[in-house]
């Protein structure tokens, strides 16, 4: 099957900034893909090249097998992009915007689908409201609807939940998930790492225009991040055999110990029993994407800090 997105050796420079520095990426049809990275990593630039809003200096990008420069009409028909910037046309109302956008894709009589989009994005009541009179979160939802008017097989969302309240965020994710189950390929950037963790099957992490990690979400979590147990003893101090595992201790007497796997938990308990210590409270800490993210993309100091946690075993 043709890849939904295929990117090869993409380079893009803005003045002195190397925004994309040799990106290779292949996203299969039907994937829910996360594009993560700190501010300025090049996520939006990558999306802009895909959407034809920016020209790469070298390298190639294809959507559903169509080159974004040479076969731009086919490529653009295959993709729907929700831009990061909150842009709108103050001359028109919500429904007009959607009718225009449909028309730009050569689609007339798109009323039923527009109604459905308005309904899913909770915009029905605002259909006849001028864009200027919408709140930021509502404008964001209109951008989502505009990206979907032509039912594109590939949907790219550049921080679609920025400025959207919690309830609508969850509803938006239900909607996008449903689009994904229906077969649409989803590419998402977000700074809410729990979102990416919960939604994305695969994740690429970008840093300074390079892909620094590319794997399934599960593998990333397993590879870069360990589990921890946080416990508080009824009395006494940690036995020496456990000190090497300790990564943090707080003023309340809670110790955080690293576990390499779940069998490790049994070893920790054994050690405590051997020393005759009793546990007052205990909590298992799961790996999270934030940690992976910090390790892979964080600043030097953050990297050292993160590395330090694990080296002091």
């Amino acid at each position, binding site marked *: 099957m043709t890849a939904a997105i295929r990117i090869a050796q993409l380079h893009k420079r803005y003045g002195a900034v190397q925004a994309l520095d040799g990106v290779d990426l292949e996203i299969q*049809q039907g994937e829910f893909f996360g594009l993560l990275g700190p501010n300025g990593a090049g996520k939006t630039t990558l999306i802009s090249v895909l959407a034809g809003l920016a020209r790469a200096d070298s390298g190639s990008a294809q959507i559903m097998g169509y080159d974004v420069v040479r076969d731009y009409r086919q490529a653009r028909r295959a993709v729907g992009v929700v831009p990061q910037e909150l842009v709108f*046309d103050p001359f028109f109302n919500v429904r007009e915007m959607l009718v*225009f956008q449909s028309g730009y*894709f050569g689609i007339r009589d798109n009323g039923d689908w527009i109604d459905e989009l308005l309904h899913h994005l909770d915009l029905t009541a605002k259909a006849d409201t001028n864009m200027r009179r919408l709140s930021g979160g509502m404008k964001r939802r209109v951008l989502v609807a505009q990206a979907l008017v032509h*039912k594109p097989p590939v949907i790219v969302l550049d921080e679609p939940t920025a400025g959207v309240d919690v309830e609508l965020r969850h509803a938006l994710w239900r909607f996008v998930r449903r689009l994904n189950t229906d077969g649409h390929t989803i590419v998402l950037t977000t700074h809410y790492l729990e979102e990416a963790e919960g939604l994305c099957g695969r994740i690429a992490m970008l840093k300074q225009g390079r892909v620094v990690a590319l794997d399934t979400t599960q593998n990333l979590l397993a590879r870069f991040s360990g589990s921890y147990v946080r416990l508080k003893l009824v009395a006494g101090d940690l036995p020496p055999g456990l000190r090497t595992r300790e990564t943090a201790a707080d003023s309340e007497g809670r110790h955080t110990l690293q576990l390499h796997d779940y069998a490790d938990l049994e070893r920790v308990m054994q050690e405590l029993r051997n020393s005759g210590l009793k546990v007052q409270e205990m909590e298992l800490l799961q790996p999270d994407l934030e940690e992976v993210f910090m390790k892979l993309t964080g600043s030097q100091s953050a990297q050292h800090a993160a590395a330090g946690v694990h080296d002091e075993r």
Partner: protein
Amino acid sequence: MNAERVSGRPLATPGQEAPFDPTRAVSAPSGFPMLLYKEWLRFWKVSVQTVLAPVLTALMYLLVFGYTLQGRLEPLPGIGYTSFLVPGLAMMSVLQNSFANSSSSLMQSKMQGSIVFVLLPPISHREFLAAYVLAAMARGFVVGLAVVIAAVWFVHLEVRHPLWVLAFGLLGSAVMATLGVIAGILSEKIDQISAIQNFVILPLTFLSGVFYSVHSLPATWQFATHFNPMFYMIDGFRYGFFGVSDVGPWISAGFVAVSVAALSLGALWMLASGYKLRH
């Protein structure tokens, strides 16, 4: 949002009810009519500013200059000054408004970022240019027509060669609309558009023979005027009304048509290369 209550209709999905069909992608209806319609609506919705205001301005010129100078000047033999003025003023309005429409539309959507809505769809460069140019010409046409219709109430006017009037009206507005597209793409600030309007277009129109016949000018100025492209547009347009002109209509028409072609090629090249629009 009501994602739970989604209807059963599947969205377009690979291998489902409406699979993505690449052949459809090329043969699908074009986005051009909608872009043209949207550009038309954009000025029509605010027609008080975009149509009524320029018509009023032209009528003011007509009243002030026409009535004060009527009888004192006779630029063309047997034609009263006020009558002489009408075609020039109408054409001036056509030219200025055609330029203003395409340049300000592109500029504004660049500033607001809403330009992405027309850059994301599969609209070809030619369709893109044609939509902006035709909408701008439509505004020029509406304004020009309104000026002539309004003027007929005050002034006796006959039209000798209506086809020449139409031809020069359309060609002239095409030149300025295309120039407006180029200016809209090139400019990074509204100020730059106003600068072009105030320091290039306004002087060129005023010095093109709207208010006088070039024969009333000293020889050097007469010579210089022949390098002003607007002169040919206005001269040819006026020929359509009175059957008299400084330069033959075919020469003027040829000159203006070549300008349209050259500017269009330039604009198309800019659009195809993504210059200033696709970074």
